[in-house]
């Protein structure tokens, strides 16, 4: 990869939310560590009932923050942003604990932020010209397409993979998200929230793997509820005033 940027001097925090991921977590952590030893890896163990936290701690390459109760992905990732904000990190990477993201591609997401071309970068499965890697099931792709249309209407930008949990944020975005990250099914809503608050969003093509162990957090029965809830949240995020305006109005 041709990258003229010094990644070594950057203070990068990789946030790994994990809920009952004891089979996947070790390989995920090693993957990130091998990609760049300077990344600070923070595992947010979202009240797992298995030994995710214990196994992750044994590797000694990551910091483990264990939530005493299960908060769901949004609350877990938000904890990571809080950590990144408190510890003054320049960039936060959101990286799923289930092994579907590829750590070597973190650099791709970092690049636009380092070059100050974007405040938030989303890794998208759907930008490759010759489609490769895991691209989810047909039904999910339809859902993602619907989100793409909603995004286009709401923020006037094409976001091809709204639900991607592989993202990079700069300091300004970390600060905002540390206290305003949506609670459940947060990814599509965050896109609207960011744009509404004048953050620059960019998408970068990445590949994703199909998860090896365990099942995804969204089952078939939940998917209708998921769509309704996410579309409602996106609309509400759109209809709210920006945080700055809200502060000014008291």
């Amino acid at each position, binding site marked *: 990869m041709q990258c003229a940027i010094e990644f070594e001097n950057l203070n990068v925090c990789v946030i790994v939310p994990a809920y009952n991921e004891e089979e996947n977590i070790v390989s995920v952590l090693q993957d990130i560590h091998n990609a760049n030893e300077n990344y600070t890896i923070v595992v947010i163990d979202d009240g797992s009932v298995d030994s995710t936290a214990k196994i992750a701690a044994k590797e000694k390459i990551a910091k483990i923050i264990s*939530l005493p109760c299960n908060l769901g992905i949004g*609350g877990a990732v938000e904890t990571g942003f*809080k950590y990144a904000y408190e510890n003054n990190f320049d960039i936060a990477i959101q990286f799923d604990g289930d092994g579907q993201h590829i750590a070597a591609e973190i650099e791709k997401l970092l690049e636009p932020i380092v070059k100050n071309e974007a405040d938030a970068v989303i890794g998208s499965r759907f930008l490759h010209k010759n489609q490769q890697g895991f691209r989810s099931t047909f039904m999910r792709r339809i859902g993602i397409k619907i989100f793409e249309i909603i995004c286009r209407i709401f923020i006037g930008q094409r976001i091809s993979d709204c639900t991607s949990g592989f993202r990079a944020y700069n300091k300004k975005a970390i600060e905002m998200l540390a206290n305003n990250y949506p*609670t459940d099914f947060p990814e599509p809503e965050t896109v609207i929230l960011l744009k509404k608050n004048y953050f620059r969003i960019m998408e970068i093509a990445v590949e994703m793997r199909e998860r090896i162990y365990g099942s995804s957090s969204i089952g078939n029965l939940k998917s209708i509820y998921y769509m309704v809830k996410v579309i409602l949240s996106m609309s509400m995020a759109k209809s709210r005033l920006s945080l700055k305006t809200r502060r000014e109005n008291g």
Partner: protein
Amino acid sequence: MDKIQIYSIVGSLLFLFFILSLIKKRKLKEEYSILWLFVVSILLMFSVFRPILEIFADLVGIYYAPTALLLFLIIGVVAILIHYSVIISKLSEQNKVLIQEIALLKHKLSEQKK
């Protein structure tokens, strides 16, 4: 005075005292009791002054006046339920922040111990 009027006055009063006693025993906070007190006082008012209820029922086109009482009751109950949903949302938000803070603090503590 009709039988039903006596029953409804007595019932409303008992309800009112029940709410007040809960507040007195600190089992119900004042801020969460206001909607209940409001609903009870309206019921009581209609029980005592029946003509008000009949005038109101007439005004909105309800033929059988006591039905208006039920309408008020339902509106009151719905208002209280929505009030609860708002409170639950607030509580779950505060709960989330607390869980996050505890996790971050515990982490900080264990880092310092090392």
